[in-house]
Each structure stands twice: as C-alpha cells, then as structure tokens.
C-alpha cells in the first residue's frame, strides 16, 4: 500500500493532547483483556471437553461398607456385584477404585488420612459402558439390587450437567468479553480519528481541494493506527502472558485445584498470540472505516 503523501502528515495532530499515547494505552488494555478472555474461554472449553469425555459412558457403582440384613461379608458383596456387571452385555469394563483413591476424595473435608481410613468407606466400582449402549444407571441398579440390595449406581449426569452448564455460560461470557474488547477498540479509534480530523480539518479540506481521494487520506490514518497499535498490542499481550503465567503458577499450589484436569496455561497463551495481530489489523480497519465514513459526510 503506497502513500502518495508524506507519512508525517498528521503526526502533530496525533501528538496533540497526547492522542498517540491514548491510542497506545487503549490498544494495550484491550489486548490485555482480550488475551485474558480468550485464554479463559479456551481453558473453559478444554475443561468442558475433558470432563465430558471423562464421564461419558462412565458410571460408578457404590457398595456401602455396612452389611445389609443378610450380613454377607463385603468381599463377597463385591464379588457378586462384579459377577452381575460382567454378565451384562453393555458393560465394557469394570475397575474397583482403590481405598486410597476413595480416601483422597474426602481430603477436602477430612485432611487426616488416619481418620479417613477408620471410617467405613464404601467400595466404589468404576464401570465403562459400551459406546452406543442404551443402559441407564437405573436399569443397572435394579439388576444389582437382586444380589446386593443396598448397591447404588451414579451416572454423574445430575451434578455434572449443572457444572457443565456453568462452564458453558462462563465460556459465553468470555466470548462476550472478547466481543466487547473489539467493540471498545473500534469506538476508541473512531473517537480518536474524529478528534484528529477535527484538528486537521483545514488540512483535509486542502488535500481534497488539491485532488486527494478519500482513500489517500484514509491510508494516512491507517498508517498511524498501525504505527501506534503495534507497541500497545505487544505490551498488552506481554502483560497478559505474565499474568497468566503467574495464575498458572498459583493454581499449581492451590489444593482445591488438584481435581481440575491439568491445563497448559502457557500453551493456551501461545494460542492467543494471534490476539495482538488481530488487534493491529482491527485498529487498521477501524481507522479506515471511521475515516471513510467521516469523509463521506464532507463535500
């Protein structure tokens, strides 16, 4: 894109009232927020997929530790439960959850491992259903109750669906934040272009008079938008990457986050490297659109 006019043409107007610093700051803030929102959105989407996949076709059978009225010993109850499960055509595999794993689940409430061990913990059996199977938790439970009357089956659906809904809502919120960042960027650049055009009204009229096209003038604003948005975009992105790095570091040492599948924050940040590039292109196009629109109202 060649510019027939000297590229210093509107320098003084952009420096006037520090509009250049305003543009750099707006871009930096928008890129920071957009990088953050995009990373959060990508992380939440990844979490949703991970959790969806991890519970899809999986159910958990719970056999309470206390014996029922038949006083059948626990190992025998487990054996009979597994026999029924293996006899079902829709069951792909079964795995008894080790006691240590079961005790770990209580860690947020009972931190003393000895105390957890002394409790009558139920036996949990993780079962995997064959893909495409129509077996429900209820039908499997009914079959199990014929041998172990207090056995129950949980398909995780009830508690997980609420959580997934929440995550999906948060994903939409992050996407909306991205949209808002873009909208604010456009509005800010539009206002800055208006301010510069008001300052340079005589110059623009002169350029029109000597034969400049609207495109010739818009290219100059695009040039300034690009020139000023690069440093802002890179600074905002660097700051967002640093923040996400710190967040990733903090999550590693947060006990409550131990059940969240590992998320590669830095990997996600790398994915969001397109944000500064998109911001610069967006600033460039916003300047062009704004200036052409404003020029169109001139004779």
């Amino acid at each position, binding site marked *: 894109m060649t510019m027939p006019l000297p590229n210093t043409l509107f320098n003084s107007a952009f420096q006037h009232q520090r509009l250049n610093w305003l543009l750099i700051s707006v871009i930096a803030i928008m890129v920071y927020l957009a990088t953050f929102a995009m990373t959060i959105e990508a992380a939440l989407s990844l979490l949703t997929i991970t959790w969806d996949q991890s519970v899809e076709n999986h159910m958990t059978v719970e056999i309470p530790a206390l014996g029922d009225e038949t006083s059948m010993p626990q190992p025998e109850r487990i054996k009979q439960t597994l026999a029924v499960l293996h006899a079902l055509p829709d069951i792909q595999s079964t795995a008894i959850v080790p006691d240590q794993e079961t005790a770990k689940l209580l860690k947020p409430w009972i931190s003393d491992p000895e105390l957890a061990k002394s409790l009558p913990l139920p036996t949990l059996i993780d079962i995997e259903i064959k893909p495409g199977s129509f077996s429900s938790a209820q039908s499997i439970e009914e079959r199990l109750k014929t041998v172990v009357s207090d056995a129950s089956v949980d398909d995780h659906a009830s508690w997980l669906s609420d959580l997934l809904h929440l995550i999906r809502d948060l994903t939409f919120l992050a996407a909306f934040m991205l949209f808002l960042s873009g909208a604010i960027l456009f509005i800010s650049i539009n206002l800055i272009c208006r301010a510069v055009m008001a300052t340079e009204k005589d110059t623009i009229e002169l350029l*029109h008079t*000597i034969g400049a096209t609207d495109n010739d003038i818009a290219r100059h604003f695009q040039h300034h938008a690009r020139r000023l948005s690069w440093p802002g975009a890179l600074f905002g992105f660097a700051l967002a990457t640093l923040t996400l790095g710190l967040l990733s570091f903090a999550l590693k040492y947060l006990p409550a986050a131990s059940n969240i599948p590992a998320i590669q924050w830095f990997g996600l940040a790398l994915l969001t490297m397109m944000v500064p590039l998109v911001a610069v292109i967006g600033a460039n196009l916003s300047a062009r659109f704004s200036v052409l629109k404003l020029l169109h109202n001139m004779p």
Partner: protein
Amino acid sequence: MLLTLNHIGLRYNQNRAVLQNISFSLAPGSFHFLTGPSGAGKSSLLRIIYLAEKPSEGNINLFGHDIAKMARHELPALRRQIGVIFQDFRLIPHLSALENAALPLRLAGAREDYIQRHTSELLDWVGLGDRLHALPSSLSGGEQQRAAIARAIVNKPKLLLADEPTGNVDEESAMRLTHLFNELNKMGTAIVLATHQQDLIQRLNKPSLWLKEGRLIAPFPPSAKAA
C-alpha cells in the same frame, strides 16, 4: 466552455441565502476578477467552483462534466485540474516549501525525480529558489504566498482560482503576483481572481464578475465599475 454555472444558489440550514441565482460561463484561457464587498459571497462561490461545497440549487458543468451526475470518487480527478490559492495560504506547517508545493504532483502519482526537478524549477520561477527546504514558519508572508501559488500551478491546472491573493502581502509582492498571474494566463490557464481591491482590477483591465449580497449583479468591464 471550461466552466458553466447555471442558477447556482447556496444556503446553510434554511438560513439567509449566501448565493442566489448565479449563472455565468468561463472560456478556456480567460481571466476574470470576482469582486464585490466583504460578505458578498466571493469565497463561497469559489468553494463551489473548486468543489469544496455543494450548491443548494442549480448545476455546474466543469470541463464538460455535469458535476451533479458524477460519483464522489470521480471528483478528485477534476479537482486536480483546478489550482486554488487561499487567502491564508494553507501551507502545511511541518512540510518544507518544496514538499508543500509538490503535494499535487505526489497525489497525481508523478515520478519522484520529476517531482523534485519540476517543483524546484517552479519554486525558482516564483522566486523561492533559495528557500526550497524552508518551513512555512520561516517564510515571509509574500514567500508563503508564492509557495502556495507554486502548489496551485505545479499540476499545470486548466483553471486557477485565487481568493484575495494580494490581501495579505505588501505592495511590491502584490505587483509581482499580478505579473505572475498574467504570465500564467498567457500560458493558457484560465484565472478567476477574487478581490475587493479596485486598483488591482483597474491595473489589469480584465472583465469582472460583480457580486452583491449573494447575487451576480452583472459581468461588466472595470471601466464601467470605475465610472
């Protein structure tokens, strides 16, 4: 005809008419004064001719084109054939005399070596050969005026419009400008020179367009006005 105005009228937001029922034609290579008292509408009429203003009424035929029928993107090509000299010069403050004068050539896509050579020669012709790289702030009023003239004629326009060109310069500079306009006119450029200085009109003895309260009273020779 180079330019024909038919029943041109101009008013802003339903206010009093700035121009009313203006009609005249200019032939190629002609020289006209546009005169009248302050506020008569001289600058507004010039703005309409150099397409900076759309008339509220009437139509303009410029270089054989009906302006009303032209698309916005077609107008710059016509504007490049008009040179305009503003009363306040309108030089871009951070560009040198050479860069200011070269702007129309750059917009027309001329080659850099031609731009440098032709603009330097032209500035030399208007007497600014030794001030090529001077910023407008370091030029005198007369020098700024000549840099503005160089910018207006660098593209060899068919029509040159000058709005009170001698209003802000001393007597000697005014005489020099008058000579410049005569020279340009001899080279075939049609000139419309807006002024309220009657001595200038009488000195050059060219036809005048007399505006009063937005109306063109009548085109008449300067001798008639003097009488």
